[in-house]
Every structure is written in C-alpha cells, then in structure tokens.
C-alpha cells in the first residue's frame, strides 16, 4: 500500500529544496518584489487569513519556506495552491512579504 504520508514527506523535502534553489535566484533577480506578494496576499490569502477563518499569517516570524510549503500542499482544510494557481515567483514574493511583516508578540510561531 502506498502511504500518503511518505509521498507527502518526499514532496515536502523536494519543495523545500526547490525553494532554497529558487529563492537564491529570486533574491538575485528581484530583490524588492514585495509588491506582487502583498498584492496576491490581499486579493486571495487575506480572504481567510485576515478574517478569522484561517490562522493569522502576518507577524508570525516564520521562515519563507514554511509559507511556500503549506501553500503548495495545503494543510487540513486549507486548499493546496497549485502551480497554475500561483507561479513560483509570486509564491516566493508572498512568502517574502509575510516573513518580512513585523513580528507580533501575540502571534505564536507555530503555523
């Protein structure tokens, strides 16, 4: 029997690796690409994550990779955001925007 958890673990590891590779490129090419990330966050993510439906994401002091991995795979009821929903560049920009929001002491780090 194929274990979903195994597939998930492999995917997580690969995504994290992809992110590390990707982010280096992104930093070099688009150092100030925060506008695009915030724009996407406000348009889509905020509809859950700023309304009490999903957990607050701003000020969590989480690494960018956490946002990327959870967005791609989903988590509990949170849908997975596929490559056709949000491309890698925009997702990195969203993660960078969120990771850069000022730390809020009321928000724990656990996603």
């Amino acid at each position, binding site marked *: *029997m194929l274990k979903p958890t195994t597939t998930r673990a492999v995917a997580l590891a690969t995504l994290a690796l992809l992110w590390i590779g990707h982010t280096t490129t992104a930093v070099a090419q688009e150092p100030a690409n925060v506008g695009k990330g915030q724009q996407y966050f406000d348009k889509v993510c905020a509809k859950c994550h700023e309304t009490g439906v999903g957990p607050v994401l701003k000020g969590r002091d989480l690494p960018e990779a956490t946002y990327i991995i959870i967005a791609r795979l989903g988590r509990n009821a949170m849908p997975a955001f596929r490559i056709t929903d949000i491309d890698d560049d925009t997702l990195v920009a969203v993660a960078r925007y969120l990771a850069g929001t000022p730390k809020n002491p009321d928000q724990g780090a656990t996603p």
Partner: protein
Amino acid sequence: MVTMMNSKYQALPKGVSEAQFDEAIGQFAAALGADQVLTSAEHLTPYTKIMMAVDTAEHTPSAVLLATSVEQVQAVVRICNAYKIPVWPISTGRNFGYGSAAPVERGQIVLDLKKMNKILHVDTELCTALVEPGVTYQQLYDYLEENKLPLMLSFSAPSAIAGPLGNTMDRGVGYTPYGEHFLMQCGMEVVLANGDVYRTGMGGVKGDKAWQVFKWGFGPTLDGMFTQSNYGICTKMGFWLMPKPPVFKPFEIKFDNDDDIGDIVELLRPLRIAQIIPNAVVIAGTLWEASTCNTRRSDYLTTPGATPDSVIQQIRKDKNLGAWNVYAALYGTPEQVEVNWKIVTDTIKRAGKGKIVTQEEAGDTQPFKYRAQLMSGVPNLQEFGLYNWRGGGGSMWFAPVSQARGSECGKQVQLAKSILNKHGLDYVGEFIVGWRDMHHVIDVLYDRSNPEEMKVAHACFSELLDEFEKQGYAVYRVNTAFQERVANSYGPVKRKLEQTLKRALDPNGILAPGKSGIRI
C-alpha cells in the same frame, strides 16, 4: 487499497505500462512543451489534496498536463486515444468537498485548464459573458469593477478561487436570482473525444451573433448532456449576468425552534415561486451559522461525538443565532423593493413567528455580512469557517434534493441528524431554495487527520445515501469517491443509455471514465 509499485511515476493509468506511458509523456511534451507536463511528486502532490474520507492514493494522478489553447486540448485527446490513457479535465479544480482537483480514479491524467483564463466577451447591453475554463469569479468580478460594468455575478461560496465554467458544468448553485447556474448557461464549446470542436446552440452557425443569447439552436439541445458527465471537455462557456439593480436589500429572518423548518418553507415557497423574493433563498441551521461566524466546536466541547442539543442551544444564545436562519434579498427599483418588502414583512407578521433582521440592524457582523455579499455577487471565502467546526480538513457534501414542501424538509432534517449523530458527527446543514425544489446541503464534517474518524465518516456518508434512497431521495451531486454508488440511485435504464452514448462518443473511454459512474 492501492498496491505500491516500483515506478518513477507517482501512479500509472490502469492497463498502461511504464514504457507506454514514457512514450505518451514524450508525445504530450512535444504537443504542449516539456514544462507543461508534470510528473514529479512536488508538482503532483498539490493535485491530490482531497477532503473525502478515502485514501489519497486512490485519487493520485499519473501526470498533470497544462493546456493553454483549444488546439492543445485537441492534441491531448488524440494522444490519449492513441495510448488509451484516461484524462480528467479540471477548470479551477476548486470543487471542495466533491473531489477538488484529484481524478476520480488513481492513474488518470489531470488536464489542468486553469491557464486558459481569458474573459472572451462581456456584453453590457445583453448582459452576457463568454469565458474560458480557468477564469475565476474573482477575476470576473475584478474585470466588472475595473471597467465599471453594471452587472452582477452569481457564484458558490468559494467564489474568490472557484470559477463559473467548472461550477456550472458540475451544476453548482449560487445565491442570487441567477443562482441556478446551469439555467443561466448559454452556449458551450466542447472538445469531443475524437478531437472535434463542437459548439452548442447557435454556435455552429457561420457568422452567428446569437450564441450567448439563444440557448436552443436547431434540433436537439445537447448542453445538459455535457454537464456532470464525460462526453467532452468544455473549453468555452457562455452565461447570462444579472443587471446590477438600483436597490439591493438583503435581510435575515431568525426562527427559534428546530420544528419551524416546515412552516418556514410553507411561508417562503409562494413568495419564491411568484418571484416576490427572486433569489435562491437559504435556510441555514444553527451549526452552519455558528461555524461561519468563527465558532469552533472546541470552544464548547473537547469530548468526541455528536454535539448535544443543550450545547447547540447554548451556542444559539451566545451567538444570537436562530435554530433556522433565512437569508433572502430584494432587488429592483426603490418602488419595486418597497412593495415587495411590505409583502415579505406582512407575511412574517401574519405567521406570528420569525424575527426579521435588516442590513442596517446587522451592520458588519458575520454571518450576515458574507451572506449579503453572496447574494449581491461580492466574492469572499467566509464559508470556509465550516471547516473549522471540527477541524482536520474532512468534508463531504451530502446534498439530497426535495420538493419545496415543509413536510419533506422536516423529514429530511430528522433523518439526516439521526444518522449523523449515530456516527458521532453533527448536522451542519442548510437548504437552498430553488423555484420549486430544495437543495438540502449538509456538510459531513470530520477530522481527516484521524484514521478512525475517516472510517466513521465514510460509513456515515454511505448510510446517509442508503437511508435517504429508501425514502425516495437522491443527491444532485456527489464527491468522486461515491460516483458509482449515486449513479445506481438513478436506475439501470439511465445508466445503460449513458453507457450507449459513451461508447458512441468516446469508444476508447479516455474522457474521465467513472465520472457520474459513466464508462464504456
């Protein structure tokens, strides 16, 4: 149960060897571009995120293809025919609680049409639109707003990320006067299994301009045949938009008792049929309401099982919710709305029960706010609060249809609640009132991260289908784990006819075999 295989692919289509699949993948890459053919775990895993109570592995695709044009869709079906590979088309893949983006069977290829996202046409005089599969309601809403077009959308609750084509093809419903979405559909372009591009209605007439305004064309009208089915891949869909009314007046009517459901339906039906209340009215139960104003079961209980009535009573009190909460709206000129408002308020007064809440009284509070948004075509995702009721990401919609009669609705609620509670789950339901029918929509919510609760939810869902069928009820739509089961509810003659059509139109059975239980 899925057998582990030793392959570089996450899954393989049934009856296709790895070597054959290698060849097919090469062909797909040549037709679409190598970067538009996805087979790796990191790319495929997001397509396997399901909410149904079955093993994810049962719905894992073998590959995902990203098409950007009708010609590419034609190329895909030709290759699928050559290699007898089944393909599962998705538009935005946001059919939450019905299967999301994952294929009905392990190993099918997902054809993701999200990149085909052009708003091809919006006619502000005739109030029509023509869109590609990947267009989302949010995208269309932004387009209308940016261009200041006086038109209103109708959509399902996951409006911000779902889209009109997919929702209509699965016969989803919304909350405005145009809430029966398939009724408002006008003109389809469909890629058939043999690669032909077929247009319904007036779409085949050279030089025609009436494709989006006249549904029927000449001869058989086949649009319905392509919905909830697997006879073609819809690549364009036309539909009607409602002119934005000068006045929009949403309101709620709260009823105190569980037993009021029968009277509510009897009160509302005449107003709905006569179009005094023109929109798809909702009658929401307490726990639906509670969840969508960010109430969690864990706020009240930490023990497993069905939530006791005493706790539900307490939630009503704490959150100021009714046992049943009706949401409806009036649309039109000030004069029209004034007249209809008087009819509505007089009806409620005469009934001697029900407390009307206006937008002015509700202010910015939930769930009134998101209900008003849904009834006026403003996208939001507030209804995802349902998933927080128990947490754990498990959701399966159980949606039996009934007549819009009070006695029918009361009977359905009692039956559903007793089965759900027996399995330790809660009745979290609402009725969506069509013109003469009710879509009784119940979210079977469970903790999908708990294997035991997953088993329970599966058993519960099966029992709901069985017991409702014994009473003459069937669902109008179901998740991809129960397609075959529900197809049986509708009888053998229908199934045989559908199979005959399938064999004629798709002799290799490449298009979504298993959708609605239809196969060659």
